């Protein structure tokens, strides 16, 4: 950070803005500790730099506020201490008699004050204090207040610069095509017709495919439409969703790895159970599909490169460009732009690799953009998964054992050990099972997968929370009360459940064809419970009317951003319940646009009420925790409405017939 002699405060922001509000939250933390006036702060998005200086610059895992609460607050507090010390020296009085407030240092109760701009030159010459003194929370002026996001003004007047909007003199525009079959490659192309398109300049190959370079985006797309491409479709040309489904079903019959075991020998409990129930839950591949497709502008110079890119992971972009161009990392300048949505997709730097290769080929600046179709068909999808659940009961009808076997694509691809990240929502839960067995079976496919908001937690919790409802039903227990009993060691989870249940009016009677369901979940440091009210009409269509959400992520920096993340998480997760499915045929993604991969519309979006529960320290994540409990809350509500269990998302109308 810097303060100039006019008192203007400049903050170099390490994390990107994709609409989640972290840049505003981090500014609030620093400004609060600095005692700075809100309207005298300017943000500069930091260029990608070394981890040793910046820490991780990656917005992922709901970490931006959590990881920078310390550094941002310490920066503000340190500067405040130095400004106070400079003022005390100027006045020749003890530091203790001076205090910072409202962008100035005040001398006792004399009414005398010196502005930060007047003090900064003196302060900058002082030694940096060894001990950082943070404010008492009772003195916070911004933290825990609903401060409007700093990125909003430029987003309502059209001036915000996203990836597609970035311009640099003499730049070209290029669009790319990758082999539609995963694992295939370019064999050749005929660009005769392409080169006849007005505005098209050249067609270039890069490691993953082919690009049409033109004077405008439109010409590049027209040129691409005219390009005749010969693909070597490779080994996956016959791959279909049916095969992948069968592969996972087969894997589920093979010996799994034991991931966790609690209580009395769960295998013996299952063998000896007087009654057992079992169910299979399934989750489809899901695309991120941010509203802004992948895009990056690159300018490769003689011995350096500039890349202007909407990204969640500037350092990954820097490493990727350095590797692709065989250039020292210090020569790679990554300029992070606003992301038009991300949800995990922009943790990947594949589109940066494209852009720097194409810029190098043409010897100048170029904006490399993907079409919607390319974006849909070349994602890093939320992994498909299959969950086998089993519960055992003794002769007296008591619940005695819980078993959850997860079969999924592993991003770590390790065959020698359990992939614990893939077992989020399945293992290490705070449910006090009488006994339990959690198992893992990896089943990888050639389909690229990646982190999709909440990563594996949504799939694991969907199965867990759906099946808990089934166990409660088997026992004739109220599913809310049953959860509360099993969660006696996790009072914070009990509290979010209680708040959500109360808000929805849990125990009331609902009209014919409607129902209320509840579910909870924990991931990335946040606990969330959703209570859902749904109806199912005579044509078996599910409508989610209202979601009451309770979130406990500890301390709150910006309550309005927390509410927005919960509301947005509900809608994003609802898409995976109602529509979101990527399928394969002949090795290629069948969906092309929002026609085949529909998003949640205004009519489909439920009313969402967020209840923030401040359960105490530490600071938890906010972006991802609202995702996992949504799908199970909805299917549990559908059960309450119809008596039918939906165990596969997205749901299908046929499942309700």
């Amino acid at each position, binding site marked *: 950070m810097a303060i100039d002699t006019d008192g203007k405060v400049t903050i170099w922001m390490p994390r990107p803005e*994709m*609409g*989640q*509000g972290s840049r505003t939250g981090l500014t609030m933390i620093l400004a609060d500790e600095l005692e700075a006036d809100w309207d005298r702060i300017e943000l500069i998005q930091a260029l990608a730099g070394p981890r040793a200086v910046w820490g991780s610059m990656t917005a992922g895992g709901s970490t931006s506020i959590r990881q920078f609460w310390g550094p941002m607050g310490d920066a503000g507090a340190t500067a405040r201490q130095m400004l106070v010390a400079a003022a005390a020296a100027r006045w020749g009085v003890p530091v203790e008699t001076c205090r910072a407030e409202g962008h100035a240092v005040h001398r006792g109760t004399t009414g005398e004050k010196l502005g930060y701009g007047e003090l900064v030159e003196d302060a900058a010459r002082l030694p940096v204090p060894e001990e950082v003194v943070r404010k008492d929370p009772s003195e916070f002026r911004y933290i825990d207040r609903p401060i*409007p*996001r700093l*990125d*909003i*003004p*430029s*987003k*309502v*007047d*059209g*001036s*915000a*610069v*996203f990836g*597609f*909007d970035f*311009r640099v003199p003499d730049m070209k*525009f290029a669009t790319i095509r990758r082999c539609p079959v995963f694992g295939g490659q370019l064999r050749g192309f005929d660009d005769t017709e392409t080169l006849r398109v*007005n505005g098209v300049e050249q067609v270039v190959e890069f490691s993953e495919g082919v690009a049409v370079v033109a004077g*405008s*985006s*439109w010409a590049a*797309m027209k040129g691409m439409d005219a390009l005749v491409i010969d693909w070597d479709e490779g080994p996956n040309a016959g791959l279909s969703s049916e095969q992948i489904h069968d592969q996972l079903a087969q894997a589920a019959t093979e010996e799994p790895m034991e991931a966790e075991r609690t209580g009395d020998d769960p295998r013996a409990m299952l063998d000896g159970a007087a009654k057992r129930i079992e169910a299979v839950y399934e989750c489809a591949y899901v695309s991120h*599909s*941010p*509203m*802004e*497709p992948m895009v990056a502008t690159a300018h490769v110079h003689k011995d350096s490169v500039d890349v202007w890119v909407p990204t969640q992971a500037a350092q990954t972009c820097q490493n990727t460009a350095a590797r692709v161009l065989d250039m020292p990392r210090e020569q790679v300048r990554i300029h992070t732009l*606003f*992301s*038009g*949505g*991300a*949800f995990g997709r922009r943790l990947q730097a594949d589109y940066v690799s494209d852009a720097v290769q194409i810029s190098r080929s043409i010897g100048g600046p170029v904006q490399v953009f993907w*079409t*919607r179709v390319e974006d849909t068909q070349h994602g890093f999808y939320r992994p498909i998964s299959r969950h086998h659940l089993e519960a055992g009961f003794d002769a007296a009808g008591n619940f005695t054992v819980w078993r959850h076997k997860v079969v999924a694509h592993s991003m770590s691809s390790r065959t020698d050990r359990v992939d614990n990240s893939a077992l989020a929502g399945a293992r290490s839960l705070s449910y006090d099972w009488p006994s339990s067995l959690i198992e893992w079976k990896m089943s990888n496919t050639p389909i690229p997968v990646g982190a999709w908001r909440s990563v594996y937690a949504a799939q694991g919790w969907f199965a867990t929370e759906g099946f808990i409802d089934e166990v409660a039903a088997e026992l004739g227990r109220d599913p809310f009360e049953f959860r509360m009993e099993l969660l006696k060691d996790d009072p914070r989870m009990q509290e979010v459940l209680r708040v959500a249940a109360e808000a929805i009016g849990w125990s009331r009677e609902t009209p014919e064809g409607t129902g209320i369901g509840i579910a909870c979940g924990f991931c990335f440091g946040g606990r969330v419970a959703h209570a859902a009210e749904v109806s199912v009409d005579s044509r078996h269509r599910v409508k989610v009317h209202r979601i009451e959400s309770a979130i406990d992520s500890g301390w709150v920096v910006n309550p*309005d951003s927390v509410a*927005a993340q919960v*509301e*947005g*998480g*509900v*809608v*994003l997760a609802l898409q995976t319940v109602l529509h979101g499915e990527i399928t394969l045929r002949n090795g290629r993604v069948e969906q092309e*646009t*929002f*026609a085949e991969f529909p*998003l*949640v*519309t*205004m*009519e489909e*979006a439920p*009313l*969402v009420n967020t209840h923030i529960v401040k359960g105490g320290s530490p600071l938890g994540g906010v972006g991802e925790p609202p995702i996992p409990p949504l799908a199970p809350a909805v299917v549990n509500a559908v059960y309450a409405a119809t008596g039918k269990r939906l165990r596969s998302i997205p749901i299908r109308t046929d499942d309700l017939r």
Partner: protein
Amino acid sequence: MRETIEFTLNGEPVSLDTDGDRILLWVLRTDLELTGTKYGCGIGLCGSCTVLVDGEAERSCALPLRAVRGREVVTIEGLAGGEVLHPLQEEFAERGALQCGYCTPGMLMNAAGLLNGNPHPSREEIVDGMEGNLCRCGAHKRIIEAIDAASKRM
């Protein structure tokens, strides 16, 4: 085929000597350097590219330039009256009715078209009128509330 196409853009006359088959979205973004109007899908499914043509919301990704000859086009850059934001912009900002903000220009222009045709819509009419504009971040509830609030002020 090159031709001269004249129309009004955000209140100012524009004359372009270009191929009239070209699509308005890309003419705005490239030739006229107005990048507020967004590309989301290119086939009229998402509404990110919505502009007003003679006061009605139109998908600029599906509109040949020739179709706006002699007509009045307003983009997000022209929605405000100079320094004074349109009530829709104020309400979107006030209520945080956006996250990433990429769909927002299209949302605002579609809402402006909706209110031009029906200044005081019911909540159901707002939902119905916004049904074709997609948002991935999930600002749906706030968007509807912001349009409702703006319509009551206008």
